[in-house]
């Protein structure tokens, strides 16, 4: 049996929930598919307070934002939420297949919004597969979702916001943070997060990287090495740091497999941290009726993911004829909000990346 759906949202993180709520507010019917037990995405482990403006829940902790968005979505009569359901494919005839409770379900949506988020990047060095080497997000899940003390002594790789924030959260959980290592010559994340660590006495070593990890069956320590101005290791600067855990906070990359599979025009854009869909001003991909929003269309922050979700949700609903006048106004205001969020020096990278994407619009892919 194939079920007809108006708007099918794939992924219940900040972007997907915002898209579903926006679309449903116009009267459109939405099916939201989430592979986890509950919607919320990676907000469920974010204990820090968000920046941005009030419209993006500034000053609130991510866990609270997740709860609020999910509650709103559950209350909406015209949003149906399928949890523990993994989307497997989007086919040429528009059929979306889903794995749920061991069953293979088929849907035929009129519009699809892909908000599948991102995955953590890895780093190449000898013995990087030893137990005890985690993505920073994994350690965050262990301590903030499961309440497990994930380590005794941690070395954090990456002084972007995730590395800085997770290091501070490790201290809150009673874990020793030996140091934060950053290959770039300066700290990438916000100063406010870095200052908290500095006050707690955690050294942030810029211009350093991991040479190798060691341990017998599990991580026992890492060898760090200093880098010169060309990012080449300086011989003789190696230091041995004993630790039971190494956290990699070296960035995220879009989880864009479904978009590739749906044959959307994709481009590798370094500034957006991976392969992203080429979208129009409504966040619609090159495939008619498939939209992309949030980290899957370029790595940014949860605040912009929520606004992108809103934009895609309203645009998809308007294209089905729902509340067109208001939806169009909302689309315009979401665009303005995004411009504001991406203004200033912290948004320079994103602006450069999006410009590259825009240049590719309408180009043939092969």
């Amino acid at each position, binding site marked *: 049996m194939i079920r007809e759906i108006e708007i099918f949202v794939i992924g219940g993180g900040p972007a997907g929930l915002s898209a579903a709520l926006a679309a449903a507010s116009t009267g459109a019917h939405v099916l939201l598919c989430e592979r986890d037990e509950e919607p919320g995405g990676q907000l469920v482990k974010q204990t820090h307070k968000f920046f941005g403006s009030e419209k993006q829940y500034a000053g609130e902790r991510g866990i609270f934002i997740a709860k609020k968005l999910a509650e709103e979505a559950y209350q909406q009569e015209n949003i149906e939420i399928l949890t523990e359901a993994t989307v497997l494919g989007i086919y040429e005839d528009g059929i979306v297949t889903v794995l749920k409770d061991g069953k293979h379900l088929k849907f035929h949506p009129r519009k699809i919004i892909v908000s599948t988020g991102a995955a953590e990047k890895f780093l190449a060095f000898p013995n990087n597969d030893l137990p*005890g080497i985690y993505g920073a997000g994994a350690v965050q899940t262990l301590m903030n979702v499961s309440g497990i003390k994930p380590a005794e002594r941690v070395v954090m790789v990456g002084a972007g916001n995730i590395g800085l924030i997770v290091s501070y959260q490790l201290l809150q959980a009673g874990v020793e943070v030996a140091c934060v290592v950053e290959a770039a010559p300066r700290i990438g994340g916000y100063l406010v997060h870095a200052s908290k660590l500095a006050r707690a006495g955690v050294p942030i070593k810029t211009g350093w990287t991991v040479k190798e990890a060691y341990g017998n069956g*599990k991580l026992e320590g890492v060898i760090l090495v200093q880098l010169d101005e060309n990012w080449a290791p300086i011989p003789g600067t190696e230091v041995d740091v004993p630790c039971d855990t190494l956290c990699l906070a070296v960035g995220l990359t879009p989880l864009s497999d479904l978009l590739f599979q749906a044959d959307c025009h994709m481009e590798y854009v370094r500034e957006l941290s991976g392969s992203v869909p080429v979208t129009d001003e409504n966040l619609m991909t090159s495939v008619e009726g498939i939209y992309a929003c949030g980290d899957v269309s370029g790595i940014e922050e949860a605040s912009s993911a929520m606004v992108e979700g809103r934009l895609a949700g309203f645009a998809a609903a308007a294209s089905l004829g729902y509340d067109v006048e208001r939806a169009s106004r909302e689309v315009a205001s979401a665009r303005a909000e995004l411009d504001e969020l991406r203004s200033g020096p912290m948004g320079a990278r994103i602006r450069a990346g999006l410009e590259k994407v825009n240049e590719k619009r309408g180009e043939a892919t092969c």
Partner: protein
Amino acid sequence: MRIEQHPILQFDRGEKVTFLFNGQPVEGYTSETIAAALHAAGIRELSHSPNLDRPRGLFCAIGNCSSCVMTVDGEPNVRICITKVRPGMIVQEQHGKGVVTP
């Protein structure tokens, strides 16, 4: 080890239960994943690389990477980072790619 006191969070762990890991009883809670319960018991070596049999631990903890797969109640390649603890479940370390028995 489980976090008992946290400046921001409170943890609703559910009901305390016992399951078997490699034949040995391990305590867990019904709101925890198998990976979390094993970590609480100090077990961090989870899977093994299929060809060289190198030990592997948890990497992503959200079902993306398959670095934690084990055999659970006879089913191989179960991602224990997204599978909840159930009383009496049989969890076993897996070597090789696992065999699916219909």
